């Protein structure tokens, strides 16, 4: 399936780019650093060209690989794709069958491409793309054709638009610890408005059961109310987040999904936690007589994750930063 021989894409490297790379490299006194800068700069420029041809905007100026200090202090070859994230552009020499990916770029990347330069540096072969790496080396036979990069970008654009469509800002959990709460996130007792007073007994029940489980007086709890479902009337549900600090840099998080308009959760409703690359990290699904779903995990300050509650084709997505 992965036939590198057939799937690579050749693109020219302009004299202008070769001069830029040489100039960047020449400012370095250490030859290994100079060589690394030259290759990383060229790889980033070639990928910039490919994406430009595909009509995808990139920003060299905000890429770390273009930053005078960062590129000396780290082996980075990132290309910022506007509105999407960073693509890491690694390169290999002729004859190598694996591509080195330094640990300092294992996170915060939407994917990795491998570029092979002709010896005279006048052209490059885009060998392929992977979304994630787990070790220092990518085997070339793991690479997907370069057009899969375009697909990954399109998928990310779509999912970020969905999130934008739900018009919620990113919820900052460490702010909760300072008593700063995002709009829409209320104490359980205040979740319902006057038109929903018929459900007041539900929020009282939930609040009571949650307080009975209170193990840690440092816990902070807020929830949001939302509707989900394709048939009318839709289900009215509450998503509740209970957090407490753990150590210096971590927070314990418990997410609970409760039905409000009914006694039980709709069957097959799913509560999923996604990491900041959009991968499923934890999942809870309602069985036929569940009256809530709980998910627990902890994370470090600064980490980002999303929650997706889905039923049939309907989803609610909330984005968080710890």
């Amino acid at each position, binding site marked *: 399936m992965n036939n590198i021989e057939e799937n690579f894409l*050749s693109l*020219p490297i302009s004299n202008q780019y070769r001069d830029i790379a040489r*100039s960047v490299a020449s*400012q370095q006194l250490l030859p290994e*650093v100079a060589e690394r800068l030259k290759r990383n700069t060229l790889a980033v420029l070639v990928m910039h060209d490919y994406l430009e041809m595909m009509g995808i905007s990139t920003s060299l100026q905000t890429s770390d690989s273009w930053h*005078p*200090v960062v590129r000396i202090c780290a082996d980075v070859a990132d290309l910022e794709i506007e509105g999407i994230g960073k693509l890491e552009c690694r390169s290999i020499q002729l004859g190598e069958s694996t591509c080195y990916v*330094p*640990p300092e770029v294992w996170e915060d990347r939407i994917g990795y491409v491998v570029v092979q330069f002709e010896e005279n540096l006048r052209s490059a072969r885009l060998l392929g793309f992977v979304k994630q790496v787990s070790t220092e080396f990518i085997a070339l036979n793991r690479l997907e054709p370069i057009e899969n990069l375009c697909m990954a970008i399109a998928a990310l654009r779509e999912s970020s638009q969905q999130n934008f469509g739900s018009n919620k800002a990113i919820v900052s959990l460490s702010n909760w610890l300072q008593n700063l709460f995002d709009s829409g996130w209320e104490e359980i007792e205040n979740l319902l408005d006057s038109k929903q007073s018929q459900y007041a007994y539900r929020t009282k029940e939930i609040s009571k059961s949650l307080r009975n489980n209170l193990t840690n007086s440092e816990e902070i709890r807020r929830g949001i109310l939302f509707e989900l479902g394709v048939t009318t009337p839709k289900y009215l549900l509450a998503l509740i987040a209970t957090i407490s600090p753990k150590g210096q840099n971590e927070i314990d998080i418990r997410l609970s999904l409760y039905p409000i308009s009914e006694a039980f959760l709709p069957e097959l409703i799913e509560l999923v936690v996604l990491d900041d690359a959009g991968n499923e990290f934890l999942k809870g699904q309602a069985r036929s007589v569940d009256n809530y779903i709980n998910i627990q995990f902890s994370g470090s300050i*600064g980490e980002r994750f999303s929650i997706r509650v889905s039923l049939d084709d309907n989803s609610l997505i909330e984005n968080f930063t710890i």
Partner: protein
Amino acid sequence: MIALEQQLKQLVQETCQHPHGSIARQRALTSLIRLINRSQKLWKDSSTYYEDALQLTWLYFCRNLCEAITAKSAYDSDRSNVITWMNAYLKRRLQDMYIENQQQQLQHVLEEGEDRKITDQIVDRIIAPPQPSNLLDQVRQWVESDKTKVLQRTYIRDRADVNAQVLILRRLPPESSWQILAQEFALPVSTLSSFYQRKCIPLLKEFYEQQRVA
């Protein structure tokens, strides 16, 4: 040869069925570029700026194959085959660059003592402002002095000995490898590199910003 022309024609047609900017269009374009490269029928010469002209040609190709985005009119399959169309553009660009090159050579000779190469001008336009060649030394000095102590105070959880100051200094060229550092600190490579990526690099960027304003 006929087979190639047919293939190209078909692929061009297919490409243009999809809307501009769509993922299907991007995939078809990528396949087309591969096919055209493989045909080896694109004009080739050995001028220094050949690749510059070819790069412009590929951009022109992507932007005007189906709709006229930068050209006066889009590619018309009735008028010529696609490679012929590209070669015409490529040769025009090579011609432009030849003339420009000649003029610059002349200027270079005429301007005595003017040491500035043309490429420097281009470099300045694209690249970040040139930095002093002792930037590495400046960074090292800043990290070592750590006046506000922010570097020492930023450390891996429960490990005040593995702080930003220590790690950055070790990773400044010539850097200690992650393996060696992992052994020394008895922490996994990924823990160290994650801390470096998420905490240390932003601090380095901040330093640079402060330097620029100063």
